């Protein structure tokens, strides 16, 4: 077994796998050993795939016989537990009785499999993808702290080398929040860019599938595989898929970056705001023009996302609610599913109207800028027992603060990638997000990559 294989990126592994300098079996064994050693503490997986080594042997045979499927061939990838798979159970984070999900590959899992990825198992998530924490998963940087959520198992697994990459899903921030809190990259593509058939729904008009990875290039490589039409998802766009990875490394000096001065910088931990301000300056020093703007309608955004996602989730769980199965949900999720009944149809439609206002406001901004840069989360990883924290001089619920900066890009459906931009005074990672126009993941990835390659954050690793 080769030491350190588990710590490498897809970008660095792919050429070595193709040329057989690295064996998919050795790589998968290294990751599985990492899971055996550390997942008792981190609790990032709910199921480790029985067939991972077998899939690695198959990848090895294929590559040896000259059938290289592409950069994901032989790469161990974790799958969030709300994606169905033919050879792994799906729980969607619940232990409530009466739920069963098909043993059938979801669109994303089928695409990963076809690309030759080795599926390592199902990563832990908050029940039915509600919530911005993932108990009992622990943060690899400090096991006394949370990993964020709801794709928290994916965040912890990728950061700790228990997977080279992992799938997540993002309804109000559930890819980007754990990415920010754990120190990985997390890409929420444009709504409709990646098909969601086979993902247990949370909110039909917000749910977005995407990867958590170690580097921006890895996110691009996975998006190359995931993006495209999905006949099983009525919201999935049938648009051409560019080569996202090929665009990386192109100059960004002629691009402009927008900074939204209200909402995104109103109330953050100082270390977070300072790190992102430095990142914006760094991008300016690469020649990017910085333009500041404000979107006053964001004041109504929280009400809008509550008005949309609460009744949507309640509608999905309506039968469970009426037959009493929600009584077996975790207390916080049970409450959220039940209170969805209190949101009226008028509230829901006003939420959808507000989304249109925000979409138009952001469209106007994007007529003058190429990307928007903002902090991903207002705070860094908090301790498991913390319910409130002082943020910018005010006591605030950690749950309320954790998604404040992510949900605007769910309401608007815009692509947004979170990447590390430093560490706070306690050594916890800080994330910033780069958002772009609809279906312009390419530009968001380019700018994120331009920032990443001039810093060394991705090589920082926690000691377990």
């Amino acid at each position: 077994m080769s030491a350190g294989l588990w710590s490498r990126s897809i970008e660095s592994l792919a050429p070595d796998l193709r040329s057989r300098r690295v064996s998919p079996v050795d790589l998968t064994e290294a990751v599985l050993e990492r899971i055996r050693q550390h997942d008792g503490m981190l609790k990032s997986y709910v199921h480790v795939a029985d067939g991972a080594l077998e899939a690695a042997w198959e990848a090895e045979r294929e590559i040896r016989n000259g059938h290289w499927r592409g950069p994901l061939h032989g790469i161990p990838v974790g799958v969030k537990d709300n994606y169905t798979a033919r050879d792994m159970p799906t729980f969607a984070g619940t232990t409530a009785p009466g739920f069963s999900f098909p043993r059938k590959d979801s669109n994303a899992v089928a695409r990963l499999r076809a690309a030759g990825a080795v599926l390592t198992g199902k990563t832990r998530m908050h029940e039915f993808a509600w919530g911005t924490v993932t108990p009992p998963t622990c943060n690899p940087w400090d096991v006394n702290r949370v990993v964020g959520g709801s794709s928290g198992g994916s965040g912890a697994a990728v950061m700790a080398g228990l997977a080279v990459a992992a799938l997540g899903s993002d309804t109000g921030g559930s890819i980007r929040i754990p990415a920010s809190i754990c120190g990985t990259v997390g890409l929420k593509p444009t709504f409709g860019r990646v098909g969601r058939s086979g993902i247990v729904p949370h909110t039909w008009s917000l749910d977005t599938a995407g990867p958590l990875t170690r580097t921006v290039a890895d996110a691009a490589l996975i998006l190359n595989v995931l993006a495209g039409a999905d006949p099983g998802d009525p919201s999935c766009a049938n648009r051409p898929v560019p080569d996202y990875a090929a665009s990386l490394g192109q100059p960004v000096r002629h691009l402009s970056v927008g900074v939204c001065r209200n909402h995104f910088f109103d109330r953050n931990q100082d270390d977070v705001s300072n790190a992102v301000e430095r990142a914006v300056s760094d991008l300016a020093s690469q020649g990017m023009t910085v333009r500041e703007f404000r979107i006053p309608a964001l004041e109504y955004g929280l009400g809008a996302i509550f008005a949309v996602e609460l009744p949507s989730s309640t509608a999905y769980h309506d039968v469970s609610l009426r037959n009493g199965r929600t009584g077996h949900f975790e207390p916080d999720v049970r409450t959220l599913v039940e209170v969805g009944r209190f949101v009226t149809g008028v509230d829901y439609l006003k939420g959808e109207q507000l989304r249109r206002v925000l979409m138009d406001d952001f469209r106007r901004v994007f007529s003058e800028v190429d990307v928007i840069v903002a902090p991903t989360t207002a705070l860094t990883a908090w301790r498991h027992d913390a319910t409130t924290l002082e943020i910018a001089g005010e006591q605030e619920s950690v749950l309320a603060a954790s998604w404040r900066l992510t949900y605007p890009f769910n309401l608007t459906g815009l692509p947004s990638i979170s990447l590390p931009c430093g560490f706070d005074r306690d050594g916890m990672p800080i994330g910033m997000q780069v958002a772009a126009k609809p279906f312009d993941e390419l530009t968001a990835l380019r700018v994120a990559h331009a920032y990443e390659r001039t810093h060394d954050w991705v090589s920082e690793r926690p000691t377990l």
Partner: protein
Amino acid sequence: MTGTSAKAPPDPYRDILGVDFGPDRLNSNVRAFEDILNAIRTLRECDLTDVHPAVVFDPASGYGEEGAP
């Protein structure tokens, strides 16, 4: 006999909102909803009369390209 006196008015929670929780659960959910309600109240104050909702109804969806005239 007018035929109108015996029927109880609909219960706002159970009949109008479709909420079927016991009283304790209802009270605890109403309390839990307070912060959410505050955010939704802010939204309610917003005049969006002339704004079409973001979700657009498409009667041709599901037919595919072959279904187009």
